[in-house]
């Protein structure tokens, strides 16, 4: 689980103040909020790339506030996926396993296992520069998951994927993270990602967390108001699609 207490971060003009944030183990949490409110900054602080001026970050009972990023057991998938361009997909995924000095055979076994799960076996010998957005996302996810993190941080992981493939990417994210009971903190400004994936929603604005609770609680809170019209439009679009399908399927 992730627990944050009395956290204060300041980078240039951007400030984050968090009194309390708690995500229980195995939860898929969505960090929702408009652009530029400090969501990525919070993710970077949790991962250890920004040192907070005050407060505590606890992951699975261990205070990691002063630990370097490599000792936190946190994997991150940035918005641009940040695949190592000079390595093949196989070497990207195997990077953390090689650091742990696992045997060659064990590395191959684990890479193949995760590659099968994410349907990227055919990409293993390719270089990241030749991958599509969706493929790069799956490789980045494989690389993050193979490290068996205590916490998986996803920074707008669907924003670089074209709309036709987003549904499949969402389905894959859901299947992989639920299957492995991963604790996930997924940053987005898109309510549809929260609706599709989130168990728990954290709403952030102006460097502060204004709401945290289940998806159902969020949907009935005042913070969901700005998204209502979007949700309504999506629902009406869905019902019209359903009508078309039901007409097509009805025996005339």
């Amino acid at each position, binding site marked *: 689980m992730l627990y944050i207490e009395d956290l204060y971060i300041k980078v240039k003009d951007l400030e984050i103040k968090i009194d309390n944030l708690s995500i229980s183990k195995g939860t898929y949490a969505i960090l929702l909020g408009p652009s530029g409110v400090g969501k990525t900054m919070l993710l970077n602080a949790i991962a250890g790339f920004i040192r907070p001026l005050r407060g505590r970050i606890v992951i699975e009972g261990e205070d990691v506030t002063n630990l370097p990023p*490599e000792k936190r057991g946190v994997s991150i998938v940035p918005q641009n996926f940040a695949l190592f361009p000079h390595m093949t997909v196989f070497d990207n995924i195997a990077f*953390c396993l090689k*650091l742990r000095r696992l045997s060659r055979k064990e590395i191959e076994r684990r890479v193949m296992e995760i590659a099968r799960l994410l349907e990227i076996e055919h990409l293993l010998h390719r270089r990241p520069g030749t991958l599509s957005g969706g493929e790069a996302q799956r490789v980045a996810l494989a690389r993050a998951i193979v490290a068996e993190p205590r916490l998986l*941080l996803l920074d707008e992981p669907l924003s670089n994927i074209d709309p036709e493939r987003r549904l499949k990417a969402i389905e894959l994210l859901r299947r992989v993270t639920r299957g492995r009971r991963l604790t996930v903190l997924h940053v987005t400004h898109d309510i549809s990602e929260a609706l599709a994936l989130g168990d728990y929603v954290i709403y952030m604005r102006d460097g502060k967390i204004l709401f945290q609770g289940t998806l159902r609680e969020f949907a009935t809170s005042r913070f969901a108001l700005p998204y209502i019209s979007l949700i309504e439009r999506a629902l009406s679009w869905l019902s019209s699609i359903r009508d078309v399908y039901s007409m097509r399927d009805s025996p005339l």
Partner: protein
Amino acid sequence: MSSRKLQVERSLVLFYGAFSFAIMFILIPIVSLFLFFNYHVLLKIFNTPILISELRSAFVTTFEAASLSTSILLIIGVPVAYVLARREFKAKPIVEAIIDMPFVVPHPVVGIMLLTAFGSRGLIPLNVEDTFWGVVLVMLFVSAPLLIDTVKLGFASIDVSIEHVARSLGASFYRTFFSILLPLCSRSIIAGIILALARSLSEVGALLVLAYFPKTVNILILEWLDTLGLPYAIAVSCLYLIVIFAMFIALRVVTRSYVVY
């Protein structure tokens, strides 16, 4: 050719003109140097023991000092370049201006600065006047900004999230630096090495002040121009140009395999 295409071609005349002028401007002095080259003078140098010994010694001093200064610079300059590319601190513009100082300071002034700093009566008396280490020091000083600035641009072009991901996957800072950042920056590092070597090999002004001895090729050219005359200076200049040109081609070929990205 359609009239529209002709119009476009005509509008580029100024650019083609500038292009041709630039190429000719650089090429004409090189060609003329070789046109004035006298093969017999070079033979005479090779057949005169004092001259050939002086020439050999100058070549050895020059290339040894340039290689050593570039190697030292690589060890010091790459970390400096990383800090400048990645870290923000208040004094950064001042530090960057200090590093670029050798670009703007006239070469004899560089020599006087180094003399007052590291000469026998200098602030830090290292007694480098007229020593091999004096030559190395001058070359290190004048070539530092070229390597540091080139490598800094290389590091700055690597997305910081690549570094972050490597760290979060369990790599220490040094592991990330050596297995991710250095390979990704290899092209810039090699370019920096070539530029620093070139700058070291071309230095003369500061050497005249701080380390006339042991003579480098440039000092020898100046000396022979003064004492033996232009044909001798031209002969050595041509030889130096050919060796430098061959060295840079070889360096590019050899280092090509090190460019991983």
